[in-house]
């Protein structure tokens, strides 16, 4: 049988893809989520999250290199047996499909709050998801190249919105450290940890890597780059807005609005919107691709491309159903809900598969097939 996905991506493309996927959340809601809980200590929470995500990254990379020709959906059913593997793969697919819906909603809300207040959110959601579905249909190769080619521009714009407001920064607002206690910091660390852990999405793309042996290195670089960007965002937001940072809905936009150099170079917050558009498209198309390919492999379909549009429609509906108003969203994006949910799924899936691999180490070869005789 013909393989479902024929494209190939380089480790660098995977790296760009993962970093930009993380960046989507970083440039929309993340900085205020951590500051809401840890206040000025949120930078500590983020450092904790970076350290904590590394073991998860190594486990996921180990799994990927152990089965270099298979996706997580394929080897989970050969490792755990059909019923349990089916359940685990569905959970994995559901997780990323739901994040796609949230991404669509987040970006629509962001646009509504910032520059397009009158545009119905459904229009923005549909445009994004339609584009994402078209991209997802085109395969991992297109998505990878999209990420690679926009990487430098997006990172440059992001850094611009981070460096220029520094003239308003008061570093003294970062002190005193740990005044509100360690538990709050630990709790706040769950949110960035959940976000960084999203790189298990790559376990779907590892078999299409040109150099699968570089997976763990790619994961390490991803965790460090994304972690540094989140850290920098949080530090700047805290230094510029002090305690009011915890209260902002979209801190990066507010940060870019502070930019004013000599009363001349200002009003450049629109570049934040440009970044949102690009990274939301990349993240949504990558995760939609995961969803379509995963389902196609789960049910042994001949092609996954036919699934992109139906999944897109489901995503649109999900994104509208995700939350009713800002208060619901605020009670959803808290460590004890979103943080625990995402970490449980990410860590649960990977740990279960790693344990199963170790237990059945002798029975399975690297292709994930149990030998016949």
């Amino acid at each position, binding site marked *: 049988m*013909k393989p479902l996905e024929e494209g190939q991506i380089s480790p660098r493309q995977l790296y760009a893809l993962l970093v930009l996927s993380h960046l989507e959340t970083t440039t929309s809601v993340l900085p205020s989520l951590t500051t809401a809980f840890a206040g000025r200590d949120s930078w500590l929470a983020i450092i904790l999250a970076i350290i904590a995500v590394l073991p998860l990254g190594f486990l996921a990379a180990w799994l990927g290199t152990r089965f270099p020709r298979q996706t997580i959906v394929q080897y989970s059913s050969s490792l755990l047996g059909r019923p349990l593997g089916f359940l685990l793969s569905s959970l994995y697919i559901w997780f990323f499909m739901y994040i796609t819906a949230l991404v669509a909603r987040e970006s629509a809300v962001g646009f509504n*709050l910032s520059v397009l207040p009158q545009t119905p959110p459904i229009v923005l959601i549909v445009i994004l998801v339609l584009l994402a579905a078209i991209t997802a249909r085109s*395969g991992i190769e297109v998505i990878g190249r999209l990420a690679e080619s926009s990487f430098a521009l997006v990172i440059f714009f992001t850094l611009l919105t981070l460096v220029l407001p520094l003239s308003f920064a008061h570093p003294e607002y970062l002190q005193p450290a740990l005044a509100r206690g360690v538990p709050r910091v630990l709790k706040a660390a769950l949110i960035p940890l959940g976000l960084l852990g999203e790189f298990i999405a790559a376990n779907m793309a590892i078999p299409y890597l040109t150099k699968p042996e570089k997976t763990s290195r790619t994961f390490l670089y991803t965790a460090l780059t994304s972690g540094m960007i989140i850290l920098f965002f949080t530090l700047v937001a805290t230094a510029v807005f002090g305690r009011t940072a915890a209260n902002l809905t979209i801190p990066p936009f507010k940060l870019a609005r502070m930019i004013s150099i000599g009363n001349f170079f200002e009003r450049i917050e629109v570049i934040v919107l440009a970044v949102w558009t690009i990274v939301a498209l990349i993240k949504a198309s990558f995760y939609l691709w995961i969803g379509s390919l995963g389902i196609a492999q789960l049910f042994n379909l001949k092609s996954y491309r036919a699934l992109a549009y139906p999944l897109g429609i489901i995503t649109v509906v999900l994104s509208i159903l995700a939350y009713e108003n800002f208060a619901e969203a605020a009670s959803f994006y808290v460590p004890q809900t979103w943080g625990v949910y995402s970490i449980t799924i990410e860590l649960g899936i990977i740990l279960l598969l790693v344990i199963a691999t170790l237990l059945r180490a002798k029975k399975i070869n690297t292709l994930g097939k149990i030998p016949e005789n």
Partner: protein
Amino acid sequence: MFIPWFKLKLTALLKKIEPKARTLFEFGLPTAKKTLGGKAGRRPGTHLKSRPSKIILVPLLVLLLIFSTGCWDKREIEDLAFLTAWGLDRLENDEIQASVVIVKPFAVAGPAGGGAVARERPFWLAKSTGRTLLEAMCNFATFSPRFIFCAHSRFVIFGEETAREGIEEMLDFFERNREPRLTAHIFIAKGMTAAKFLESEYELVPLPPEGGQGMLQNATDRLGTTVDTNINDFLIMLEEDGIEPVVGCWEVISKKPVPLKGELLREEIIQSPVVNGAAAFKDDRLVGWLSPEEARGLQWILGGVKSTPLIVKNPVDPPRLLGIEVMRATSELIPSIKKGKPHIKIKVEFEGSIDDNQGFFDPEKNPNLIGKIENYMADAVEREIRLVLHRCQQDLNTDVFGFGAAINRAYPREWKRLKKRWDEEFPRVDVSVDIEAHIRLSGLIIKSIKKEN
């Protein structure tokens, strides 16, 4: 079997165009892939061979053009009225009055061809009221032909009465609304309403916000006798523990128009603003004024002096004065707790150069002279610091210096105890001042021309 005529036609039509439609819509689908195994010679992306037909693509692109301009949120620049300054007052019936300065672009540009034509005032002063600031802003729609666009606002001015009653409820709008910027400067109009303040005009500059910007920059860069607070700073000082907001204080002086002879064009400016010290807040309420001297004292403590003239006695020619231009002032607050009592050490360090001398002065013959002048400078600065400390600790009891915040940073545990009774504790905070003044340069000459008498 009965088939309606239109259905017949439709099926016929569909049958007719079907093969064409197939070729039209079959794009994006991959053609059969031939070389899968050979990775080395494979060019990535070759499996996407088929292209969308041009007949489809061109109308799609045209459609895209139509939709990419945006339908719901388009705003033409011709339909916008650019608000550049706000004056906010609370009226007696508890409504909020927003007085705004709106630029008239056609009047700024001036008449084509130039010449001595009677020129229109380049701004429009409009007033509107409402129960909340949003309502007041929307009520402009009842008489403004253009949409009031706030993203270019530079100043937010509060009347004295309003500031004494508290301004936080109006500031929420600036934080929450997507148009106004947090970088807009706040100041208080002393002894009048903000609406009255906005009626003043500036010399040299036709547009009030530009005039205000220039004055503010001059006053902070050359004089240091006021403070420049933007909305973001104000909100942070409001939110942080152990620091209270302080903003600039502006007054208006009335001028009797004096006819000047020999000029072709003379606009009569009846009243124009002056920068005059600062306004100290407690929470979001104005509690008192700081004189220009006290405001500079505050700036010494906060390290906000960029450049300022410091006048001291001439040590060799006593009644005469010596003018020193101060530059590069830095400060540091060093808190300590002794037996449960907070203590603050203010460390100020600055440099100056002699710029102006009324009496005799010869540093070459008198090596101690520079040291003496430096001591005088330190004394002068300490006097100002003591003035503002006394004013804020004893008279107003408001911690505009951020002593509490400094203690919080260094001693978070003790601060938790002190925080609850900071109002009683703050006036009793023991403050020591440590000033280091340096003279590095003496201007373009060394000695004075004057002879020793």
